[in-house]
């Protein structure tokens, strides 16, 4: 609830541009609605909606909501409390994420939201995870985790341009650090947690949650 209030406050501040502001946007248009194609390619299901609003000459705020559905294989290569190896069935993760990103456009001469930018984003969400393991005695262990907390921070760079004055093309990549906290199930889900953050490559498996992610946004410049 606190996060939703924070999101609301940030949106409110973003829309309170003073009347004399010299924010031109793209020929007077400052709101872009997009979707990320890399997420559709990376995950088995879900959707992604993004809205970017230019609140200053070189800064914009992007709010994003996405759901993911994906199956992760559990490769537990050591025995933990009698769990020896995984089953053929992947763990199923269904999650939602809210993302707030602040973009800083690098060119002073060409007005945003066109051009190269650096961004910083914070994501939060929840995940429902279900799967099973096989014990040493070949007994199946089914588990189900509801509303596991998820958060990530990401830093990256990108480029946005517009075709025909309306169609937005937004490409970028970033480094992120994420955590999926499933409480008492963290140990069992060790192989899943680190892979939940980025949509491209995960670095340093098990110990850290660093990853690389990419985005290819396609959308429309509204007003």
């Amino acid at each position, binding site marked *: 609830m606190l996060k939703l209030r924070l999101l609301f406050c940030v949106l409110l501040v973003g829309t309170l*541009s*003073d009347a*004399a*502001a*010299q*924010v*031109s946007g*793209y*020929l*007077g248009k400052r709101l872009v609605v997009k979707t990320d194609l890399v997420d559709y390619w990376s995950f088995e299901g879900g959707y992604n909606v993004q809205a970017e609003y230019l*609140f*200053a*000459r*070189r*800064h914009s705020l992007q709010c994003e909501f996405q759901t993911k559905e994906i199956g992760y294989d559990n490769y537990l290569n050591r025995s933990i409390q009698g769990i020896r190896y995984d089953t053929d069935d992947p763990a199923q993760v269904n999650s939602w994420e809210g993302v707030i990103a*602040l973009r*800083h456009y*690098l*060119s*002073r*001469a*060409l*007005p945003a939201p*066109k051009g*190269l930018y*650096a961004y*910083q984003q914070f994501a939060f969400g929840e995940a429902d995870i279900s799967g099973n393991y096989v014990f040493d005695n070949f007994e199946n262990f089914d588990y189900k985790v509801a509303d596991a907390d998820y*958060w990530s*921070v*990401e*830093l990256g*760079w990108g*480029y946005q*341009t*517009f075709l025909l004055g309306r169609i937005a093309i937004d490409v970028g990549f970033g480094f992120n*650090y994420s955590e999926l906290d499933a409480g008492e199930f963290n140990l069992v889900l060790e192989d899943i947690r680190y892979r939940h953050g980025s949509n491209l490559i995960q670095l340093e498996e098990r110990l850290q949650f660093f990853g690389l992610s990419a985005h290819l946004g396609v959308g429309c410049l509204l007003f």
Partner: protein
Amino acid sequence: MSRTTMSLVVISLYFFTSCTSTNTGMLVETAKEENLCSLEKIVLIDPEVVLVDNRKQEKVFFATDRIERVLREESQASADRLNIDLVTYDKETLANTEVNFYNELQHLRYQILRSNLTQEVKSARQEESTTFWGSLQQPHTREFAKDPSISPAFGYLAEQYGTPYFAVQGVYSEYIPIQWKRRITTLVFFPPFGIAQFLTPNTNTFYYFIIADVRSGKVIHREIRLANNRASRQNLKLMIYDSFNVALKNH
């Protein structure tokens, strides 16, 4: 690594990336507040484009007809969007009977450009721009300490053209040599900066826009910007719209 530490690292890196801005810039200078008034109608005198290839020892100048046409069209389109009555007098599109252009406007254009070269103008930072929110909302804007002046002999043009505001506008775009050693070194040691450099075209485009008030004989608005981009229609129309918007909001 704790969440707090990680957040601090990311925030520090974010401000670090802000420094990846290439050598693009923009400077707006306006007249003193008492000399400002609303820009409803502007006469634009002969927009000029220069395209140069500086990659070889001898400079090569390119034909500019197409870009000049783009400049005219996009200036008119931007003025229409912002409800500015813009009248452009251009030697390429004039009828032979428009002798006033050669007798008066060309001289005025020369005066406006000359006033920026020959007069020492010290400018002071506007108070409004010093606040954090103001600096986010406005480009780097300064106020003339002493407004640059042009000859008062052109005052009669205000009545003749129905406005005291006459403007000159132009684009200077140059291809510059690529510094491969610098780019590769930066890419190896500082990949984010290097990638930004590789994505940046090896072109500098300067854009200027100056407005003078012939009644008072003063330059009331001056803007210059430098972009590391080609002088394409897409880039020019964004710069022109922004330029007109900034001029309109400043007056």
